[in-house]
């Protein structure tokens, strides 16, 4: 890894000031993507702004139909949160499927979303749970936030502070894991809200996380796995690599969607 200057701000304001002061800077959250990327010299920021000591970026809050999670909350903390287990169990279960126990002790929700890895789990949860991504400057709807592989609506130096999830009536996440990396080969998050069903797919799309309107329309009429019979996603927009080709990924989207609907529908 190339050398860098290290900064440890105590507040969001200080972090934002540092990021604007130093042009070539990166925020360091859990570091479980950024540090490996720097080791490989694929990234070489001159300045690292460590968010680890900023109390404002922590905490889980439940109010009305919304659950808000601080950007620096770790996957293990989300997985083990009583508030999340009781309000959106599918979200806690999703967090428990990320990486391995050690990764879950370091990786953060804010880091995952800001990175928008095409195989990451959180982007699917954000889309399906109609999340609002709150930054130090504004609020961004999840539908507008994810803009393609490793690409988001965040401006230079803009910092995610919290993520607010809409509590669904029923939801579930079905993930087909790559057994080596534990990333999603295909992951489908299905959530049934008062105003309609949302189906979000990660791991499969060549342009990152996406929703499936045909499935949502069918599930709005009947929230059953059978409602998805005959609906398929196009192989044109699927990833294809040594782990799974496009046709297999497209097939898995259907299988995982049905499993997620089955699991969601069986929740009281």
């Amino acid at each position, binding site marked *: 890894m190339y050398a860098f200057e290290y900064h440890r701000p105590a507040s969001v304001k200080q972090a934002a000031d540092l990021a604007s002061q130093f042009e070539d800077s990166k925020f360091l959250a859990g570091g479980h993507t950024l540090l490996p990327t720097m080791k490989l010299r694929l990234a070489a920021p001159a300045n690292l702004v460590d968010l680890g000591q900023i109390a404002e970026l922590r905490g889980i809050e439940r109010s009305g139909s919304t659950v808000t999670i601080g950007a620096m909350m770790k996957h293990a903390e989300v997985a083990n949160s009583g508030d999340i287990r009781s309000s959106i169990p599918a979200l806690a279960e999703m967090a428990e499927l990320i990486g391995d126990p050690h990764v879950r*002790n370091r990786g953060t929700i804010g880091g995952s979303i800001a990175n928008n890895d095409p195989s990451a789990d959180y982007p699917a949860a954000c889309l399906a749970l109609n999340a609002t991504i709150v930054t130090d400057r504004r609020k961004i709807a999840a539908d507008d936030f994810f803009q393609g592989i490793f690409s988001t609506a965040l401006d230079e130096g803009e910092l995610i502070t919290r993520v607010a999830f809409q509590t669904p009536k029923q939801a579930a996440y079905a993930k087909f894991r790559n057994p080596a990396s534990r990333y999603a080969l295909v992951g489908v998050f299905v959530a049934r809200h008062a105003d309609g069903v949302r189906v979000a797919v990660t791991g499969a799309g060549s342009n990152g996380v996406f929703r499936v309107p045909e499935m949502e329309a069918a599930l709005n009429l009947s929230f059953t796995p059978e409602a998805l019979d005959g609906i398929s996603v196009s192989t044109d927009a699927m990833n294809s690599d040594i782990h799974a080709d496009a046709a297999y990924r497209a097939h898995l989207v259907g299988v995982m969607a049905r499993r997620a609907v089955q699991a969601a529908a069986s929740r009281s």
Partner: protein
Amino acid sequence: MTTVSLTVNGQSVTADVDPRTLLVQFLRDNLRLTGTHVGCDTSQCGACVVHLNGQAVKSCTVLAVQADAGTVTTIEGLSQGGDLHPMQAAFREHHGLQCGYCTPGMIMSAVDIVNRKGHSLDEETIRAELEGNLCRCTGYHNIVKAVAAGAQAMGQTPLPQAAE
């Protein structure tokens, strides 16, 4: 250079480090605690697992400066005096190792599993919880047996006061 102050295996340590120093490099190269191993160096194999503030982490993917003011326990800090920690004794008893390279990380992960999940661990739980630790010799079978036995033993014997 940046100053870091840590408590490592009960000892206070302060040093000036290059910010890019990984926690595992700091432990091995600065403190000469070479029980913690570097295997893959890509946060997959788990040979570098230590406890940071009571949680198991991969020390190849944590900067030493991120651990500032924290408490670290390495494999060297598990036992006190000449007696093996019950988990170490279980790995010896059940032949939970062959070359031994992954063993420090396996044992630190195993103790963390017991801390979170208790003393009665079934095989499925152990295998799922060890998914971040790779062993290329044993086929895991004896490791799983050792973790189950070590977990039981940790519940029975009065524990030597661990450094953390």
